Every structure is written in C-alpha cells, then in structure tokens.
C-alpha cells in the first residue's frame, strides 16, 4: 500500500486500542447483518415506504423511542466503562485520552441523543392523541426534525471509529476546545452534530407549540387540557427560546475553528467566557426542557393509578409557567466560580433557589393526588413513586448548589455529578420510562409484563442509590469530576468501589427492561379495549394502536379528563350523545422521502465540515438548498382518505 494511503488511514481511522478495533469490527458486522436481514426478507421497500418516508407522528414517535433506547445503551456502556476505570485507584483500564473521550460522549449522548429523543418520542406519541388531533401542525417538518436528529446521532457516533471523539467535556469550553489546544476532528464532530440536531429540536419545539395552541379538539380550552400537554407546551416554549443560544455558541466556536476567527481564543482579544455564558443560556433551560415532560408524565400517571382527579390543576399549570420563565434567568449558577462579582452571584443564586418553590408545589400536588385515592402499583406508578424521593433529594442538593458561596466548594466536584444524575435519571429517565410503560399498549397494542418490570425497577432504583449517594460523599472529600484516575490514600477508594457496583446494578436493571420488552413482544397480553388502565384522557378512547388518522370523528370536549367523564356518564347510564355526524373524508399529508434525503445531505455537509473537506460540505449544503427549493415548488402534498376506507378500518377495530 502506498505510504500516503497508510498515513491517511491511520489518521482517519481511530487506532491504537483493542477496544476500538473491537468497536470497528462490531459496527461493520452489525451493519452487514442489518443489510443482510433487510435484503433476505425483502424488507427494503417496506422500510422505505413505512418508515423512512413516513410523516405519521405515531411512527416518528416509535422511531424516536427506539433511537433513545439505543442511545441510552451506548451512553450507559460509556458510563460503565468510566465506572470500571474509577473502581480502584490508579486504574489502568482506560488511558487519559480515552477516558476523556468517553465522558464527553457519555454526557453529550445522554442529554442530546437520549433525553431529547426520549421526550420527543413522548411528544409525538401522545400529544395529538390527547388533544384530539389527527397529526401535528407540520407533519413534514416533524419528519425533518427526526431525520436531522438521526443523522446527527450517527455523525457523533461515527467519531468513535473515524477521526476520534470529542474530548473536551459535554460543555466543550474553549480555549480547551478551540484551535491551539484541540486540532483534531473530534471537536468538529461535536459542533456539527449538535448544530444539526439543534436545528431539528428547534423545529420540534415550534411544531408542538403550534400544534397545542391551535389544534385542540373543539371544547378543549387551555384549562381543560391534560397536564402532559401543558408540560409539552412549556418545554416547547423553552426550546424555542433556548436553543438559539446553543446554535449561536456552537456556530461561533465553529467559525473560530474553521475560519480562524477569534471569538473565544486566548489571542487577538477573544473572550472564552462569552462561550461559557452563551452555552449556559441554553444549558440551563435545557435541563428543564428534559424534565418538564417527565413532570407531565407523572401528572397523568398519578391521576390514572390513584383513580382520582389530579390535585390542584390550576396551581400545577401556574407552577409550570413560573418554572418556564424563571429557568431562563438562572444560567449563571453554572459558573458562580468565575468571579463575576457578588451582585451578579447573589441575583442568580436567588433566582435559582426560587425555582424550588413551584417545583415543590408540584411534588406536593402529586402526593395529594395519591392521597385518598385507590392506588394500583403498576410499573408506570412504580417509576413515578421511585421518582419522588429521588427528585426531592436531587432537587434539595440543587438548592444546596444554588447557594453561591457553598457552590464554591461543590463546583465541579462529585457532589455536582451526584446532583445532576439524581435529577436527570431520577427525573427525566424515570419519567420517560414511566411514560414508556404507560403508553406502550397504546403504541404497540400489547402490555409490558409486570413481573419483569418490577424486577427491572428495583434493580435500577436500588442500583441508583448505591451508585450515586456515595458520590455526594466523594464531593465532600474533594474529588473533582473528569479525572481519569486518582491516587490511593485519599479515602476515595471505598466510595468509588461501591459506586461502581451500583452502576452495574443499574446496568442489570437496563438489561431487564430490554428483556421485558422482548418477552412481552413475544408473549405479552394484547390490549383489545384500547383502555387498559382505565384512563382519563382522550388517547384511551381510541383503539390500540390508533388508526393512522387517529380520530374517525373529532371528539367534542366538555371538561377536563374528557374520556373519564364520558365513561362516567355512560356508567351513570346517561344518554351519551354518540356523534351521529356522518363520516367525512379525512385530509392527510402525503409521505415524502425528502426529509430523509435532506437530512442525509445535512450529514454530508456535516461530515465534510468535520474533516475540512469543503467541496463535500458545499455539495451537501447545495443539496439541502435544492431540497428546499423543490419543496417550495411542490403543491401536491396531501390526499383524502375516502369514507369507505375509514369505515373499513373502524370496523376492523370493532367500532362503528
């Protein structure tokens, strides 16, 4: 082989460690296997027609869900690798560089490619059904959002085998992440993949904001809307106002790196602090973006499984709105230690603490919903109950961090690590898993078995405390984050060892969840009624899985908990005004391959930029432009489902 080729190859492909060769081989094998299976079973056409081109919110939701679970696995494996390295002092399992790449991808993947798609899965699966709509406001845009997320995730994951992963932390502060200190493509992978998925997320926020504001069923006023929709609404507002800051921060850093600008360099007047500032203008709202939908899930779950109206609906709504606004005004608490002065620190410390008030109100209202109810300990409620103590502790440690002078001691220590895992896992992940168990029958038409679900929960929950409570102590002992090794004799060993055991227990919990899904897919109980939990909101009035037009007739809503009230009326034997309106043809958007193609072109652009191959980048960008122009000239984008087809579908479900 010519020397130049070998030289190129060794720089292009990551080399050096057996683990990476292993990953290379594994990725190639898995890809080949997928190609083979698709070809062998002649599924290409099916894949294209049913999935790659779909604009149906339910299918997009399923794809988000699968992606989120896969990314949770990848991020979780990263976590286990880190914990293994830290189990004992002077660990030799990973080298510094490798460890740095792993915690960077772990954080980035978990927040942007696990938590975000997981909440978007819930948005997509639930919102249109709950508000009585046939799809989101902009289904085509929705597909674009998904595929942008998808190619961005691929781009970031590719960095593991090609070019090297980013290694400057999920916050990637310059100057460490800027040119003189970081030449490699890793950082470019980070910037471009986040930029691409960020655009997609912004579009999703916009889409759901418009959907909820304008597409509710007749009679569903805002104050009759299910609380999950309120949560999605506030998260969407936060996405709309926060993500631009991420876009700006990443773009400026990228311009520094590719165009030699000096926004954040140490030279020529650059000011790295401005990046830190802009990053957290997004970063803090982001953590509420991922936790608010979880709050929404809990509100639905407690009401259903306590068989009771949600307590304090109005103050639940009010608290969410307060959280939405105030969480935009606290970003500095991530850099109290930058020394911006006591006035600044005091203001942001107070603002941060104030968030505890509305959040606490929500906690109390959930408890009061359970109070004097009839509690069924199903898997969704189990995860919800697991959330309460978790979040109470994690939130309390958040308040402890918000006390600026105390944060001078906690900042960047394992105390902080423990805090945010407790709210991110105890809040977001528990919420999303609860939501997954809750809406699973609606999406797939069968229930997840309870026995395995219980085991999974307990492994994960106990593992959680074993893993993260010791980290608070490590914080008090002065252990800082992002160190790949530590010396013996600090007293850190015991706690690290225990923490690692806990991480493995969580891993077992995750495997049990996966097993739970597989087992139930094979032997699960089918949901024939469409309302397996005796639910309260409109999605349970539909058959499971819902037909692709959702509602044959759009329901009219007269109160909160619309479906529950309808069932109550029926139970009381009141004459139910079944809609006698004749069915009408339903107007639906057409599938389109363009969102997928457009996203692939974005990938081409991103990949080209990553390696500074500008020809490739320009080709990708031009392709994107052409897609947009073509779309502008497309007038035939929708079609009607004829009445007889609706009748047939409904009859197949046993409904009229």
């Amino acid at each position: 082989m010519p020397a130049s080729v070998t030289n190129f190859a060794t720089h292009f492909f990551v080399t050096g460690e057996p683990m990476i060769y292993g990953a290379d081989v594994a990725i190639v094998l898995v890809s080949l296997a997928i190609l083979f299976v698709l070809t062998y079973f002649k599924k290409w056409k099916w894949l294209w027609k049913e999935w790659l081109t779909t604009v149906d919110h339910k299918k997009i939701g399923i794809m988000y869900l699968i992606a989120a679970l896969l990314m949770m696995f990848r991020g979780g494996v990263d976590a286990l690798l880190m914990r293994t390295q830290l189990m004992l002092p002077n660990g030799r399992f990973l080298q510094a560089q490798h460890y740095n790449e792993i915690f960077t991808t772990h954080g980035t993947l978990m927040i942007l490619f696990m938590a975000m798609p997981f909440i978007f899965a819930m948005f997509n699966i639930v919102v249109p059904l709950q508000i009585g709509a046939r799809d989101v406001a902009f289904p085509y845009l929705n597909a674009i959002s998904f595929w942008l997320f998808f190619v961005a995730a691929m781009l970031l994951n590719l960095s593991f085998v090609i070019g090297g992963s980013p290694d400057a932390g999920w916050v990637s502060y310059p100057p460490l992440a800027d040119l003189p200190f970081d030449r490699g493509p890793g950082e470019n992978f980070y910037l471009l993949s986040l930029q691409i998925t960020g655009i997609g997320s912004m579009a999703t926020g916009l889409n759901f904001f418009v959907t909820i504001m304008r597409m509710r069923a007749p009679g569903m006023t805002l104050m009759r809307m299910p609380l999950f929709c309120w949560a999605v609404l506030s998260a969407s507002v936060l996405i709309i106002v926060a993500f631009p800051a991420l876009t700006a921060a990443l773009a400026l850093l990228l311009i520094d790196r590719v165009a030699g600008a000096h926004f954040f360099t140490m030279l020529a007047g650059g000011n790295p602090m401005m990046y830190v500032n802009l990053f957290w203008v997004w970063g803090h709202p982001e953590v509420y973006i991922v936790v608010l939908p979880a709050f929404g899930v809990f509100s639905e779950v407690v009401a259903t499984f306590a068989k009771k109206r949600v307590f304090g609906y109005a103050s639940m709504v009010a608290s969410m709105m307060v959280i939405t606004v105030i969480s935009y005004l606290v970003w500095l608490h991530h850099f109290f230690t930058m020394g911006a002065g006591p006035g600044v620190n005091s203001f942001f410390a107070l603002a941060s603490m104030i968030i505890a008030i509305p959040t606490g109100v929500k906690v109390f209202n959930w408890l009061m919903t359970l109070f004097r109810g009839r509690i069924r300990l199903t898997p969704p409620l189990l995860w919800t109950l697991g959330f309460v103590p978790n979040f109470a502790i994690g939130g309390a440690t958040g308040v402890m961090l918000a006390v600026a002078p105390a944060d001078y001691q906690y900042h960047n220590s394992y105390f902080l690590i423990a805090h945010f895992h407790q709210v991110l896992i105890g809040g977001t992940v528990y919420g999303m898993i609860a939501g997954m168990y809750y809406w699973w029958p609606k999406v797939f038409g069968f229930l997840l078995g309870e026995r395995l679900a219980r085991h999974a929960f307990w492994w994960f929950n106990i593992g959680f405390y074993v893993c993260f409570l010791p980290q608070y102590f490590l914080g008090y002992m002065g252990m800082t984050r992002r160190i790949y090794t530590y010396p013996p004799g600090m007293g850190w060993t015991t706690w690290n060892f225990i923490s690692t055991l806990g991480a493995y227990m969580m891993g077992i919990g995750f495997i049990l969840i996966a097993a739970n899904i597989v087992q139930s897919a094979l032997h699960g109980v089918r949901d024939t009624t469409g309302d397996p939990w005796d639910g309260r909101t409109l999605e349970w009035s539909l058959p499971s899985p819902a037909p692709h037009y959702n509602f044959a007739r759009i329901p009219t809503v007269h109160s909160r908990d619309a479906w529950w009230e309808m069932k109550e009326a029926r139970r009381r034997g009141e004459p139910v005004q079944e809609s006698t309106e004749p069915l009408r043809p339903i107007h639906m958007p057409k599938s389109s391959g363009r969102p997928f193609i457009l996203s692939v072109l974005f990938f081409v652009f991103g990949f080209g930029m990553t390696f500074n191959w500008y020809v490739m980048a320009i080709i990708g960008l031009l392709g994107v432009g052409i897609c947009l122009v073509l779309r502008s000239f497309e007038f035939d984008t929708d079609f009607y489902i004829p009445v007889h087809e609706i009748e047939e579908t409904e009859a197949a479900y046993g409904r009229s």
Partner: protein
Amino acid sequence: MSEMGLRRLRRLGVLAAVPLLCTGCGERYFILNPAGPVANVEKNLIVLTFVLTGIVVIPVIALMAFIVTRYRDKPGNTAPYEPEWSESKTLEIIWWGIPILIIAILGTFTVRDTFRLVRPPVASGPPMTIQVTSLDWKWLFQYPGQNIATVNYVRIPAGRPVEFVLTSHAPMNSFWVPQLGGQEYTMPGMAMRLWLQADRPGTYFGSGANFTGRGFAHMRFNVIAMPSADFDRWTQQVKRTAPPLTTAGYKALEQQSVVGQLQYSSFPKGLFEQTIRTDGGMYMKQKMETATD
C-alpha cells in the same frame, strides 16, 4: 483470647466499619473540616442548607410512604376514597408558603455571605499576596513579596490572610483548596482574586477543578501552612538553595507536561503581569483596587 486473635478481630471490626467510619470520622471530608475562616463560612452555610432542605425533603418522603401504604387498591381497604377531591385553598397556601419561607431565609444568608467572601477575612496578621498561574498541567506559584516561586506546592504562613491572584496561561482551570475555602476559576488574560486563610499549620489538599485535558487528573498540589517564623526560614532557604526561574525555564514550564514539585529562588520581573497581558489582559478595563501592602 490470644493477643493475635484479638488484633485480628479488631482489624476485622475496623474493616467492617470502614464505610461507617468514613462518614463519621471525617478527617477526609475536607469540606466539613474547614481549617480557615473562608471555608468555615462556607461550611456553616452548607450545614444551614442541609437542615433547611431536610425540613421539607424528609417529610415529603415519609408522607409518600404513608400514602402509598394507606391507600392501596386492595379489597377491604377501608381508607377513605374521594375521587373528586381536587382542590384545597388551605393546603395550597401551606405548600406555596413554607418553601417561600425557607427560600427567603436561605436567600438572606446566601446574599450576606456572597458579599462577605469578596472581602479579606478578618485580619489576624498582615495580608500577603501569592500569584497563581495554571499551566498545562501544573501550578506555578509566585511570591511577589518574597521573590521566590514554586511549582505544584505552596507554603503560606498560618493565621495570615492570603490574597491569591489567579490566572491561567493554558485552558481555564479552577483553583481549589477545600479545607481553606471554595474555588475560583483561573482564566487566561484575567487576574481574579481569592482570599484564603489557614488558621492552623498543616498540609492541605488542593487541586485543579476545571478540566483541561489529558494531564488534568495530575494537577494536584499541597498547601502547607506553617508558623510565620518557619515560613520566613523556608523562604530564605529557597532563596539560598533553589535555582532561579529564567525566561527559558518558564518557556519550558509552559509546555504540556506533568512535573513534580519544584522551587525557584527568583523569577523574571513582571512575569505574571506579562503573562496576563499577552493573553488578552489589556481588555480588562477595571481599576485595580489595591489590596496588597
């Protein structure tokens, strides 16, 4: 029982108690064992927040446990069931009110101490200044008053407030000595001020707290507080025995590397100021309030 057996038993007992002792004995829980007034202020706040948040968090968890056991959907459960009960002004007022109260108390103390910590601790002796530069991946300490420098360890006189002036000539780091007080970022082109004081002689663990790349995990240093007289003796000794830090020597230190502890009998005049200026310090317009003597 033989001496041997007893000892073995005791060792076993100690082993079993390690996790408990770790929480109890505490020497190693730096933050909870302050050795100076700054860290003490911070510790008191930490204890206060612990108590105040505990007041709500523990009842919340207990309440949940109670509710879940009492209102299970089991046949024969006689607990009241009120499916329509969903509003209560009184209750709502209580749980908007109590957190507001707690946050108000906490907020007051937070603001007070935030302002308090930017001032030097009550002086029990004349303050002194030490200039700190974080490099890849080592800490350089310059003593302008003594005209000596050290790397990866720093000695201070006990009982005197020390003004650490912090900068970086590498990616941003953070200067943290948990037993003496909280951390502050070291940033290129800027000079930040952190007041610390050790009340008693001792060796205190310090480390970089903000990630700076491959060698970051090795950026640890000790702060050795010693009686004033000993400190003076030590400076004299460094002056006599250590080599000077030359410009070339500094250039070598700048390179990415991990080194052990070093000391220098002098350093190039104005090195610290020069470092800051080349990294963009000329854009920091603020007037310097002279705090040094």
